[in-house]
């Protein structure tokens, strides 16, 4: 919404500086996005009369105009087709500046020197029209600055109007708020009666759906089509609309001024001189003004002619067939009130929005309908030689009353934290057109029908707040009740622990789009059975909800590789989505954590850099397990799509599968453009967090010396070292303080399919030094246990 200051002043004598007005608009909730001052971009352009037009000696389409600009005469070169002797036009002298910082210089055009330039509306920043030179009023004083003649020394406030304030989509509504704010008088004068004639034939109006169209006013006028006068064009242009013709401009003018959309039909093209307002039939269609054939649905409201042929989509756009043009001699002005929800629905379905529909769907004033039509008739008399039929047809079977709202001053103060008297409250809201009755603290407010947002007491409270000024409300602090503790839940804390553990392990946190393509999933081996699809995606790349973090992370890895970042350690902690369980309609959401690592770990210059291997992924998983203190975690070799068939393991917590860790499948790595090994993991954080945690009780620490024993076993290659560790732990019992695998190797001497696993064991008792006999017993016990459990033999 663009509100020129000069237009606002038609209704209230604003005299504050524009910065102050802008500040007031902001405080009123009519947010100022921008302030334009078109005149500031123009200088040195004056009115000049064309004395003579002569052909250019060397060109057909450009001519030479001799002009008089009051204090002198000059010759300029001009390419516009519409110049003729006698016209008064804007003349940009040498040295003048036009919008866009366009400086006018003396220059030769096809061999003839031009001492300046004649300007089109577009060249003056007045809309898009570049079809010819702007014609100024013939009586303009020659040499006078066009900024004064055209009223360009204006300030235009570009406002962002919230959807609850349709009234402020009109100059009048904005002016009313400003008048209230500055304590100025405010008046919308009644329209002059215009010129009327009895002889103009009557029209008929039948509204078949009064719920959708509660009011329909029609007035008829004979007109002389043409361009609007400069002042009208100027206002439309400043408000951001292109002048079209006097009749169309009048309807737009009234809409912009009063938030009162109108439509002008060429009455000569309305069969039967009448209007039928009805809903569309299924399968019906019509061509709108923009030349598009629109298929209609049965709940679209149509304005039809007397023979029921559609002539407009009610409240949204007129039809091609009855559009006014230069041949029009008689118009029917439609001024109606349509139910907002119906307009919104049709507009959304057709994907067709207009200045009118934006206003109708928010709710225009049903009781300003007739006045709007009258104002248009009055204006047509001025700008289109309009002669109106005396009769006004007004179909308004159920007039919409002003809403009565009970207001409690105590409630107003309780919500705002203020201490206002009832009289103050009333005096704040009355300048907005709200009337009040009663003098008690509790009173009744009647809301004007141009404010459809005022329905409830709380709506009046908001008006009080707006008028009182939010900045004037004393600021206090709401404290949480004594005794309540503000803290993260254990789940939220654990989530942080997971992220912190990975940061400590050298992984940086990435964030990848949770919207992916189905093909992204398949490409990295993610199961798509339970995938959730987006119904209205903008792009196929964002058409399904990710069921895994791996596609995003591997994509990020590829992007880093492509940018020459080979050493990458990324993790993500985020939501993944699966089709709903059972009869739930919301998807199942889980928080997953996944990591990918590639490249090498820098150890140079003292050692060679170490290539990343699967141990790095295992370390990351261990970091998470340790941070969460999980008690029962085991890894089991597994083949899993997207992972190396022999270098991946499933992770179990309390015997529940929670994820995978391993090396990424080499073929997949190749498609990523990554030259190193890629390792990674993906775990279900929700399941991790439900795992049993280690016994939190303190365990005493032995002060006695340990006995360290290394044991190496030869076992079948498929025996899991972790299982051997478990056997050793069981055999070593509480004396076994620690055990870890420190060496594995394969060799022909061990026999095919065999592997040597070497473990370092440390025995220690809590209360004594272990005797040689005890140590020997533990030693042989461990050996025997492993040999029998895993068909192992001790390596000599």
């Amino acid at each position, binding site marked *: 919404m663009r509100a020129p200051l000069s237009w606002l002043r038609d209704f209230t004598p604003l005299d504050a500086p524009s910065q102050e007005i802008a500040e007031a608009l902001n405080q009123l909730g009519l947010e100022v996005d921008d302030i334009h001052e078109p005149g500031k971009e123009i200088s040195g352009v004056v009115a000049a009369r064309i004395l003579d037009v002569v052909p250019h000696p060397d060109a057909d389409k450009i001519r030479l105009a001799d002009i008089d600009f009051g204090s002198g005469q000059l010759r300029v070169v001009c390419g516009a087709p519409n110049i003729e002797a006698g016209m008064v036009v804007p003349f940009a002298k040498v040295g003048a500046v036009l919008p866009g910082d366009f400086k006018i210089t003396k220059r030769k055009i096809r061999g003839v020197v031009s001492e300046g330039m004649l300007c089109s509306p577009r060249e003056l920043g007045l809309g898009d029209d570049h079809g010819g030179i702007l014609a100024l009023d013939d009586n303009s004083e020659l040499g006078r600055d066009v900024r004064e003649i055209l009223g360009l020394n204006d300030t235009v406030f570009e406002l962002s109007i919230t959807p609850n304030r349709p009234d402020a989509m009109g100059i009048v509504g904005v002016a009313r708020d400003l008048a209230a704010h500055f304590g100025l008088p405010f008046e919308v004068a009644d329209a002059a009666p215009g010129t009327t004639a009895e002889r103009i034939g009557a029209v008929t109006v039948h509204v078949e759906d009064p719920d959708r169209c509660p009011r329909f006013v029609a007035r008829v006028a004979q007109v002389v089509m043409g361009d609007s006068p400069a002042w009208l064009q100027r206002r439309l242009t400043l408000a951001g609309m292109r002048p079209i013709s006097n009749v169309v401009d009048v309807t737009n003018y009234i809409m912009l001024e009063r938030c009162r959309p109108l439509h002008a039909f060429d009455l000569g093209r309305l069969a039967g001189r009448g209007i039928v307002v009805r809903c569309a039939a299924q399968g019906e269609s019509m061509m709108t003004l923009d030349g598009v054939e629109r298929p209609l649905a049965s709940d679209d409201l149509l304005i039809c002619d007397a023979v029921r042929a559609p002539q407009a989509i009610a409240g949204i756009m007129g039809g091609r067939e009855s559009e006014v043009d230069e041949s029009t001699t008689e118009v029917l002005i439609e001024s109606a009130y349509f139910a907002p929800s119906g307009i919104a629905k049709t507009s959304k379905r057709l994907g067709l929005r207009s200045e009118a529909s934006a206003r109708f769907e928010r709710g225009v004033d049903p009781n300003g309908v007739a006045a709007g039509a009258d104002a248009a008739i009055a204006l047509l008399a001025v700008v289109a030689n309009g002669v109106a039929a005396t009769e006004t047809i007004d179909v308004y079977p159920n007039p919409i009353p002003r809403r009565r709202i009970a207001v409690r001053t105590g409630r107003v103060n*309780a919500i705002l934290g203020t201490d206002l008297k009832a009289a103050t409250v009333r005096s704040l809201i009355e300048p907005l057109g709200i009337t009040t009755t009663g003098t008690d603290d509790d009173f009744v407010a009647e809301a004007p029908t141009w404010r459809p947002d005022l329905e409830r007491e709380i709506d009046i409270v*908001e008006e009080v707040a707006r008028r009182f000024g939010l900045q004037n409300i004393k600021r206090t602090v709401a404290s949480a009740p004594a005794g309540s503790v503000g803290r993260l839940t254990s789940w939220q804390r654990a989530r942080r622990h997971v992220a912190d553990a990975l940061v400590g392990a050298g992984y940086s946190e990435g964030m990848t789009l949770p919207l992916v393509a189905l093909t992204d999933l398949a490409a990295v081996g993610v199961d798509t059975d339970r995938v959730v699809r987006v119904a209205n995606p903008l792009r196929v790349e964002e058409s399904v909800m990710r069921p895994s973090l791996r596609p995003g992370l591997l994509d990020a890895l590829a992007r880093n590789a492509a940018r020459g970042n080979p050493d990458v350690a990324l993790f993500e902690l985020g939501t993944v989505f699966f089709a709903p369980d059972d009869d739930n309609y919301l998807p199942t959401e889980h928080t997953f954590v996944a990591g990918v690592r590639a490249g090498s770990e820098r150890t140079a210059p003292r050692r060679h850099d170490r290539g990343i291997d699967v141990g790095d992924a295992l370390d990351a998983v261990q970091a998470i397990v340790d941070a969460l203190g999980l008690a029962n975690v085991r890894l089991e070799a597994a083949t899993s799509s997207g992972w190396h068939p022999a270098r991946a393991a499933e992770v179990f917590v309390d015997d529940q599968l929670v994820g995978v860790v391993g090396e990424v499948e080499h073929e997949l790595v190749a498609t990523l453009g990554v030259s190193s090994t890629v390792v990674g993991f993906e775990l279900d954080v929700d399941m991790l967090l439900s795992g049993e945690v280690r016994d939190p009780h303190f365990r005493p620490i032995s002060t006695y010396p340990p006995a360290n024993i290394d044991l190496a076993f030869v076992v079948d290659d498929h025996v899991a070292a972790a299982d051997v560790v478990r056997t050793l732990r069981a055999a070593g019992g509480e004396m076994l303080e620690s055990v870890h695998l420190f060496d594995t190797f394969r060799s022909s001497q061990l026999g095919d399919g065999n592997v040597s696993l070497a473990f370092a064991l440390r025995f220690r008792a809590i209360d004594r030094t272990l005797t040689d006999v005890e140590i020997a017993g533990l030693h042989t016990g461990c050996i025997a246990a492993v040999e029998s459990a895993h068909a192992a033999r001790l390596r000599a």
Partner: protein
Amino acid sequence: MNQHDTPNERSEQAPSARADDLIARATTLAGDAELSANTATTLDVLNELERSVIKHSLADIKKGIKDVDGADRARVGQALSAAEVRARGAIEVRRIDLATAEREAVVERERLDLSAQGRGYQRGHLHPVTQVWRELEDIFCGLGYQVFYGPEAEDDWHNFEALNFPPGHPARAMQDTLYLELGAPEQVLLRTHTSPCQIRLMESQPPPIYAVMPGRTFRRDTMDARHSPVFHQIEALVVDRNITMGDLMGTIDVFFRALFGEEVEARFLPSYFPFTEPSSELGVSCPFCARKGCRTCSNTGWIELGGCGMVDPNVFRAVGLDPEEWSGFAFGFGIDRIPLLRNEIDTLQTLLWDNDVRFLSQF
């Protein structure tokens, strides 16, 4: 052979001459020992010198004392002691010198240039959005608020209807919604704001509620410098008895000062949201220029961050609370905006979804 060298002759010497001879021999020995010690090049040579001087030569001279007259014995004894002290002193001084030199040589051999020999240790980095997210949670925890995360996929009820956006409401059009192919058409969607968390909280627990709800939100938008189809918001909700607009504004002041520094203040301009009334835009005085105007605040001195307001009575009714008994406020704003502002990150595309490790490791 010289007569002096025979024992017989020695015994025939005058007693005083015998004493002088011992003293002279000791003095000479001390002088020789000093010389040898000062020129010794290794600790081994020095140890050998110590052994020969103290254990042998000096012990040998000491044996002669028994032949000295009583009157001279004290004199000779003093002289021998002095010679021993001199010799031992010289050896010890040299020993320290040699040990120092040897240690220095070892150190020199062990010297490492540490200036650039770190192993390139890389700590990981939390995403800048997560860092702000946590900071916000921590501030509100400090104010006694609970932290709540709701689902990212929502139903129409929680995202719109219970928040006083009835079907066909024009404000729905302000939020281009991504719907999921689940349930009835347009029933299941990706939440367009974190406000549905308000409904979930009020449905699940009785007031008083003091809560903050950070989360990921979705709009049907194309990615560009300022827009993303997925972004982050945080929402705060207070429901209690006698909560006022003044409480809302004062609480936001406190929160902004915790986040941006003591010198900032909050600005409130009336606005419209279906689920709050009165509603207000939420801005903060520019923390980067102290309201003087800079590039970050587009020379306005203010930064618009989000919206706020008093919980609309219809929202209370939707969750079965009596708006006459309970009042409350809510406010929300985008999280991503904060690292963009603080770190002067050029575009939203750089911050979100790109994941260049050179970017992430800066924070």
